[in-house]
């Protein structure tokens, strides 16, 4: 808490407003990302990569800015950061353990035929709807 006091002066109101302004700029970039991305393809940089960066890369930056400056994690005791990162790591672990069964639809000696059928049905419906200018995902 002692160091808290020292840093308090750096974190005047103007500082918080500045962070907020940066966050807003980032927000605008992330909204415009998918719209502008098709026009920005340069070489190996494909549109989906740009969208991915503007969407999730910026989300991480925004989350960092809020956590560090608004939640004051940057001047909090270190192990709070460790605690929160550990929880995030556990979720990565969960994802890594579960994705081979749930995200993939085919593996060694098993096949998720229901999911494959559902994908095929839905994509076909989308194609048909695109041809007729209708909306396939609603109301079934």
């Amino acid at each position, binding site marked *: 808490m002692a160091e808290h006091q020292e840093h308090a002066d750096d974190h005047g109101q103007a500082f918080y407003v500045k962070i907020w302004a940066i966050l807003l700029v980032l927000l605008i970039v992330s909204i415009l990302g998918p719209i502008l991305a098709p026009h920005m393809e340069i070489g190996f940089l494909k549109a989906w990569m740009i969208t991915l960066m503007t969407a999730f890369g910026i989300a991480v930056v925004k989350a960092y800015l809020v956590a560090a400056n608004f939640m004051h994690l940057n001047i909090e005791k270190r192990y709070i950061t460790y605690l929160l990162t550990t929880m995030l790591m556990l979720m990565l672990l*969960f994802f890594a*353990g579960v994705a081979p069964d*749930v995200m*993939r639809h085919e593996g*060694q000696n098993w096949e998720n035929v*229901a*999911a494959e059928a559902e994908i095929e049905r839905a994509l076909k419906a989308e194609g048909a709807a695109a041809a007729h200018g209708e909306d396939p995902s609603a109301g079934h």
Partner: protein
Amino acid sequence: MAEAGTVDTHDAPAHDAEHGHHEQSFLSKYIFSTDHKIIAMQYMFTGIVMALIGGYMSYAFRMQLAFPGESVPGYGVVSQGEYNSLVTNHGTIMIFWVAMPMLIAAFGNYLIPLMIGADDMVFPRINRLSYQIFLISAIILIVSFFVPGGGFGGAWTSYPPLSANAEYNLTPYGATFWLVAVALEFVAFLLGGINFITTLMNSRAPGMRMHDIPMVLWMIIIASILFMASVGPLIAGAVMLFMDQVVGTGFFDPDRGGDPVLWQHLFWFFGHPEVYVVLLPAMGIVAEIICTFARKKLFNYKLILYTAFATGIISFFVWAHHQFVAGIDPRMANVFTITTLIISIPIAEMLFLYIATLYGGSIRLTTPMLWALSFIAEFLIGGITGIFLGASGSDIYFHDTYFVLAHFHYTFFPIAIIGFFAGITYWFPKMFGRMMNDSLGKIHFWGTIIAFNFIFIPLFILGAAGQHRRIYNFQNFPDLAGMQDLRVIATSALLVMLVFQAIFLFNFVYSLFKGKPAGKNPWKANTLEWTADSPPPHGNWPELPNCYRGPYEYSVPGREDDYWPQDVPPDTAPAE
């Protein structure tokens, strides 16, 4: 203090030194109290009531297995649906409403403030709220037996689509009530866990360093952290399953793009750490008792602590060993076999260290010590039989047989029942100010332990012979129709064990009123709770103690007494 110099300090402590001395009504003293000791009692008595309900259920379905189709005295004929409902709720109750409240909540609430020299938990009202939510969850669960369609019968793992769809489980209300009760119980323990962790981290007595904290508190805290870190996905899963049941979404419905395997992962990602959530507090209780009655320092405190941490961390990497043949990709099974066998290393080491603590001791076989030693003896069997199930190859055969059932009863019975009896016989003098009767305690001990082994060793044999779980009548399977003798032995032993519990209940009530007054420190133990009055008043001590040394300084050479309480300043004789 560390927070000096900031504006956001708490109220100064000085003015509330004389709180809690005015007369209180019965309601505010025992029902809506915020005192951690009263809340611990509430958890304990709720746990005992739920244990009796769970025991009654086991009586009903064991009788059905031994004498299929016959009317069970005190229950009636057990139908198929009722049988499923009984085993499902027996499992759920014994884990969520007996093991957790008795080991973590009751002993945690009682011991944490007393052992760290504080006057209460840091958030007394959240503590009370946690119990109230827990009580509501227990009531919802009991109500679920009486709703139309009967109680939920889809096993305590409640795999969808069976649990998600009333067309399949035929218990439209029972399944939802069950799910809501379990989810509420999680919320109660999240609140309780945050309270435990914060109290231990922040409110230790002056002078109490990390390695002066009694082992049982470390274990309860590690358990709380494990619970908190693992239960999140299952709470999310419970919401998803609830939506599937009530709103009609298809998260786990394969026909609508969902995936039933996802629930298995969500459940076991919590379900496996949960085993250690209840195991570690019991291990901690045993550590306290062994040290006190062997008059010995714990054998390598730091190593035990590290093995506990290691166990906690590794327990997050093993969950899918419950699903080897349940539809996961077979390649993943290899990964989880390796991690599962790795986790056997710290647990085995911890047991070795406990056994090594006996070396050079002066062992008195009092009732709590008998319970603590029997914990080690029985849990060892539970531990080693786990290797058969963690090794993927042999799990193909043993999965979902009575071998599994006997295995986890050899872990959960020591944890929940032996751990509880060890703790209650040890801390009863502190809780109620009177000693329990030692002879009755020993009769109860031997009756329970011997009967327990006679219940589950036959079940190991049945499991090795290929008998599967959750089947209400084995006469339907020609290969299993024999061996009925073993089932009858197990059931008879269960009856004996249940009867012996009456001795405990009698001893408990009798000692409550007629027991020998205990005094402050009947066992001549070191930890801080023994320096308070028995039972401790509201606020625990007139003046909160300081801590000067580790909790296990027994038989220190050159001292007259063979114990050295934590609050006695150095170089003075211990005050009696």
